[in-house]
């Protein structure tokens, strides 16, 4: 029996990317309900990017998460684990019934993403600002192996505060890591408030261009735009590393959560989870 290989070609499923994104959001909300709180807004914001990544771009085998030929997807932002778990469940790498264990004792789905716990989790993020630098090492390693696999690293605008992110940016260009694709989630929200108030990082396009990266900036909640950007990043002929700056909306798809001013870590009342799922469904019907 031939193993199912996703991505890097025509979709093997008729499920649309929008449908995948919806399901990722839905699963993330269900996981959030288990704990009653969490980084829900980030998960809802990044769901479209994850849908495009896992159902358009990445090569992987759901039944063999360590398959050598896979593309690597590094989650630097450990607290976005809830979003990645939802994508891994959608991709069939993690069984759906495990979502009930999210953040519980002995679960394979701890609140912050750790490689030793979860199939498909490539690195232990969480201590912010490490992911892109680990990605540099993996990209160097893949080149040594003459592998065609790509390293995607998802990190956040908040992680641009960390010096190591820029060490990695310098290094990736210096080492001509054309197999490294950075994806920055710019949701303009950090622990202490709006990112631009915590530490300004704009102009991002000019900075990454100046650091020697092939740079694109898109609406991270526009699936077609994200798809086109990832395609352009993969197809780019130059020797530069590639970065896609994705502007996303916190809590995208659930209007009453989108409206909350401070939504870095959401506490949602017990009855609100059902409302959130309803709001998500309503938005989907109107889409």
């Amino acid at each position, binding site marked *: 029996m031939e193993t199912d290989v996703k991505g890097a070609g025509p979709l093997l499923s008729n499920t649309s990317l929008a449908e995948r994104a919806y399901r990722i959001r839905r699963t993330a909300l269900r996981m959030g309900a288990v704990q009653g709180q969490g980084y829900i807004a980030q998960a809802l914001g990044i769901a479209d990017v994850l849908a495009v990544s896992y159902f358009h771009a990445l090569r992987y085998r759901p039944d063999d998460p360590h398959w050598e030929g896979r593309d690597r997807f590094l989650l630097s932002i450990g607290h976005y684990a809830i979003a990645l778990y939802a994508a891994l469940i959608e991709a069939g790498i993690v069984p759906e019934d495990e979502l009930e264990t999210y953040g519980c004792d002995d679960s394979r789905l701890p609140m912050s993403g750790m490689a*030793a716990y979860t199939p498909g989790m490539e690195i232990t993020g969480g201590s912010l600002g490490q992911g892109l630098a680990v990605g540099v090492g993996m990209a160097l390693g893949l080149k040594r192996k003459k592998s065609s696999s790509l390293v995607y690293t998802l990190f956040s605008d908040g992680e641009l505060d960390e010096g190591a992110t820029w060490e990695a940016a310098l290094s990736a260009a210096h080492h001509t890591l054309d197999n490294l694709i950075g994806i920055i989630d710019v949701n303009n929200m950090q622990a202490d408030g709006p990112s631009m108030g915590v530490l300004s990082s704009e102009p991002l396009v000019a900075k990454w261009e100046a650091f020697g990266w092939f740079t694109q900036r898109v609406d991270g909640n526009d699936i077609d735009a994200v798809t086109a950007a990832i395609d352009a990043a993969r197809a780019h002929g130059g020797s530069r590393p590639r970065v896609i700056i994705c502007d996303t909306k916190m809590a995208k798809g659930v209007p009453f959560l989108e409206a909350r001013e401070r939504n870095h870590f959401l506490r949602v009342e017990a009855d609100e989870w059902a409302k959130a799922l309803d709001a998500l469904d309503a938005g989907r019907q109107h889409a």
Partner: protein
Amino acid sequence: MSTATPAAAPVKKPRLTTSAMIASIAGEGQRTKAAPFGTALVELAKTRPDLVGLTADLAKYTDLHVFAQAHPDRFYQMGMAEQLLMAAAAGLAREGFLPFATTYAVFASRRAYDFICMAIAEEKLNVKIACALPGLTTGYGPSHQATDDLAIFRAMPNLTIIDPCDALDIEQAVPAMAAHDGPVYMRLLRGNVPLVLDEYDYTFELGKAKMLRDGTDVLIISSGFMTMRALEAAKELDGDRVSAAVLHCPTIKPLDAETILREAAKPGRLVVVAENHSAIGGLGEAVAGLLLRNGVTPAFRQIALPDAFLDAGALPTLHDRYGISTAAVVRQIKGWL
């Protein structure tokens, strides 16, 4: 211009120059080997095609340049970026390679701690970290003196820590590090490194302490180049009819508990731990804790660096000032007997 001799000129001591700040720890006339770490890596590379070397702008100063020259295709210059160095080494290990990453001990321990801890140790990745200028091996002052690296690293789970004594120790430690599955931190002596252990029946074994010479009055437990000082001191103490045993303990973590407890429990010996590190959190306190937890309570003393930011200056001066020269070791032990 006067030709008169200034009669009252103070007698000037010969001034030790800057070169003595960065000189190797080898004494005058001592046998040495050049760049044992780099040489051992080149040798190891013959049988380990997965071996790669990385540094943060300190290849020449960690002897990694020997490897880089022999295998330019297996060498990565990561720039003066220690956090990146460690994370990139983690990435290479994740892809199945055996990275040896080098920098100075101060920068690995103080600056890149979180990256070693989270990207490497928590994942038990096969990264080997070799760091020059451990303890007091430079007179450049606190910016370059890693007097606290053992204290910093000992609490890191999964991390094996070794503090070799001389060129032979380093040469044998390198393949042992590679054979060990998991992260290892090595305190590296670089440049012209003394060679002393070849005169003893000694082989480096990861996790093992070795008796280099036996004695009845004092048991010196030591690591790093302090074992060399302990051996020199033991010879001098012989002349004063003080019989000193020297137990070399190059693996700081995990400690060779069995050997240390057995030797320290032998009655009638003062136990002295000698280390090139702050008295806080290094080998001395590791051994003290081990002994107390196991009900072994000999008379116990520490030879170590003070809990202070140390002076800049010439190494021989500083070693004497802070009690880790051979003469100072002898002086302290005689004072305790």
